[in-house]
């Protein structure tokens, strides 16, 4: 494994310690009102009313579409990164290739725009 990756993963481990450490510290420090909190205290908050039904409900499909668009544009970006690094050595051919790649994608964006699919509501 590349040493930089080892450092990076070590850094991640250190940052994980922050969260874990805080929770551990809280376990020591925190106040316990009672051995077992009352039932009322553990109830789900819904503005002081009895919660009506479960929160785990069906959501609107537009959320799905947003994620779909994100994945598509992210894929585009990921394709662009290697070119961005190698781009200047590839000359005009590379520039033309990437420009056409982007233009084709933006056609799709334009279509979605025209069809009003990029609206949230």
């Amino acid at each position, binding site marked *: 494994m590349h040493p930089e990756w080892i450092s990076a993963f070590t*850094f991640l481990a250190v940052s994980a310690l922050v969260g874990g450490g805080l929770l551990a510290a809280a376990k020591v420090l*925190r106040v316990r009102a009672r051995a077992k909190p009352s039932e009322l205290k553990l109830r789900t908050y819904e503005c002081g009313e009895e919660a009506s039904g479960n929160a785990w409900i069906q959501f609107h499909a537009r959320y799905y579409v947003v994620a779909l668009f994100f994945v598509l544009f*992210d894929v585009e970006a990921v394709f662009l990164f290697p070119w961005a690094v190698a781009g200047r050595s590839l000359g005009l051919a590379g*520039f033309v290739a990437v420009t056409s790649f982007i233009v084709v994608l933006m056609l799709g964006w334009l279509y979605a725009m025209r069809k009003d699919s990029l609206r949230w509501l």
Partner: protein
Amino acid sequence: MNALVHGALYGVVIVLCLLTTVAFGVWFERKFAGRMQSRLGPTRVGPYGLLQSFADIIKLLQKEDIIPADADGSLFTLAPVLAALCALGAAAVVPFSPTVIASDLDIGVVWVLAVGGLMVIPTFAAGWSSNNKFALLGGMRAVAQSVSYGVPLVLAVLVPVILSGTMRISGIVAWQTSHHWVAVWPVIPGLPAFGLYMLAMLAESNRIPFDIPEAESELVAGVTTEYTGAKFSLFYLSEYVHTLVGSAVASALFLGGWDGPFAPGLHWMALKTLTLFALVYWVRWSLLRFRSDQLMDLCWRRLTPLGVALVLASAAWVQFAPGAH
């Protein structure tokens, strides 16, 4: 083995520095916001209230830990830890000076985007596991928002990558040291790309005017509605760390990082980062909030094509501008 020690050592130092900066950053924000609002801000704990954040942390740690009866307990506990991990982890590849860098990855830019972008998972997990409607709505909004603003963020970051021809952040800073700061020259992809990055960064770290996920006047406290004590403080912390690391990345990618005269590189980097950090809070306390659909419209209908245009412009610059190489 060497790399392990290096990572651990720098990890501890950088993480501690970040946390301390956040503690005083929060103090600064509260003082600054207080003066904006004709208030005094914190005054009681320590001189000028400087130790206020530490008092807050101690207070939060002492609070009773409540996991709602209907919640998914393990996920509920795991989510804040993961959030702090993602926020801090992005700092691994940020060069604070030519030498102060935990891991000089060759794909540093992608690391920042990937680890920072992972924030959506703990946020959603927190919202979903709370089994609270406000939290769930907040979680869904948060995911939709960070996912959407991920696109302009990536496109903005592509500009310095294209200009410098490397994904190594220290390489980008070095290129700026020998050429120009990206935000300064070439002006056309550079400056708008910087602005685009800052906007997307505001949205990713849920700061006003983009704080839809925890819009407290609508969703009470968004994903953190059911959270108390230490877990809440972790979310709070990770938000600030996210903003701070985002500012650091912005100064590295667009403002020349450690580049600057008269003073050591570390000082310049700190100065630029803190200036951007303060700017974020200045904006935060001056603006109202967008509505979620306006936020999405802004992202998909305005910022995304802007980002694509900037990428094309920088490609053209690299290709055709004399002396760009």
